[in-house]
């Protein structure tokens, strides 16, 4: 299995570099999928990006070639280099012939990967700001805790759709009585407006402590004046 030209020998001996690039890509990809912490996922994303950039840059490598900056004898401002060459080459810029071209590394992958690196850091900054925002809203950046909290929030929201809110505000009954009369005429209306009315009516008189994401989401409903509710139910 380890003889010349077989698969293992091809991968591990001749093209070892490409094999390690594949391994780095897999590490980054696995971290993005399987890690629990959001910051670890972002580190995995960065590992993935830099591994791809490494692959791209390495396919432009030429054996025995120098960096893609003109050597002094091919320098376009060739005044100081042509002192010893003034019989064969002209001073000043000229098109490089093909034999000299293979002495320079290919500059095109470098250019594309410069853009990729800078865009990668911009993406990382943006993703980190979203992580901070998630932490501000939910208090955690672990994925399983986040999923639990989102499910709880969803069940609270959807529970408010289906079940009726208990009316236990005797002290604020006067303030709510006008709204109750106006809203009770719309109990037969569609569920959505009924839910909106129930929410806004249940919030405005008393300071009921609902779950904070639900209350945040319903803030615009609070500011609607009461008189608009029948019109809204009719439309």
């Amino acid at each position: 299995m380890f003889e010349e030209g077989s698969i293992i020998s091809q991968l591990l001996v001749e093209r070892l570099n490409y094999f390690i690039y594949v391994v780095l890509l897999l590490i980054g990809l696995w971290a993005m999928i399987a890690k629990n912490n959001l910051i670890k996922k972002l580190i995995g994303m960065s590992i993935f990006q830099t591994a791809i950039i490494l692959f791209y840059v390495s396919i432009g490598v030429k054996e025995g070639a120098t960096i893609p900056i003109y050597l002094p004898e091919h320098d376009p401002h060739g005044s100081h280099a042509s002192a010893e060459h003034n019989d064969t080459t002209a001073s000043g810029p000229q098109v490089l012939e093909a034999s000299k071209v293979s002495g320079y590394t290919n500059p095109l992958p470098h250019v594309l990967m410069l853009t990729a690196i800078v865009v990668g850091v911009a993406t990382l900054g943006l993703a980190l700001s979203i992580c901070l925002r998630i932490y501000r809203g939910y208090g955690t950046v672990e994925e399983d805790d986040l999923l639990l909290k989102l499910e709880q929030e969803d069940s609270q929201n959807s529970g408010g759709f289906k079940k009726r809110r208990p009316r236990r505000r005797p002290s604020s009954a006067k303030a709510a009585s006008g709204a109750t009369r106006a809203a009770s005429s719309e109990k037969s209306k569609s569920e959505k407006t009924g839910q909106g009315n129930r929410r806004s009516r249940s919030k405005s008189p008393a300071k009921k402590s609902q779950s904070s994401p639900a209350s945040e989401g319903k803030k615009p409903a609070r500011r609607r004046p009461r008189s608009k509710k029948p019109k809204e139910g009719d439309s």
Partner: protein
Amino acid sequence: MGLELFNTLILSLLVVVAILSLYIRDLVVSAVIFGIYSFLMCLLWAEMGAVDVAFTEATVGAGVSTVVLIATVFNLKRKAKD
């Protein structure tokens, strides 16, 4: 021959550092090890002849990216669960 050995050594070190950065639970340490990863990449590209890319990775990856990652982790919990 020497260059290939150098390449292989740095690449294997890269794999080790990448795995380590994801395995450690303390997020600040993880960010610093990510900085090591960026530096090793920069070295690899400088050896391959991509000097502009190496310069950019040295400033952007090992400079700004690592600092921004640590600055963000200071606002979160420092210990990851896994």
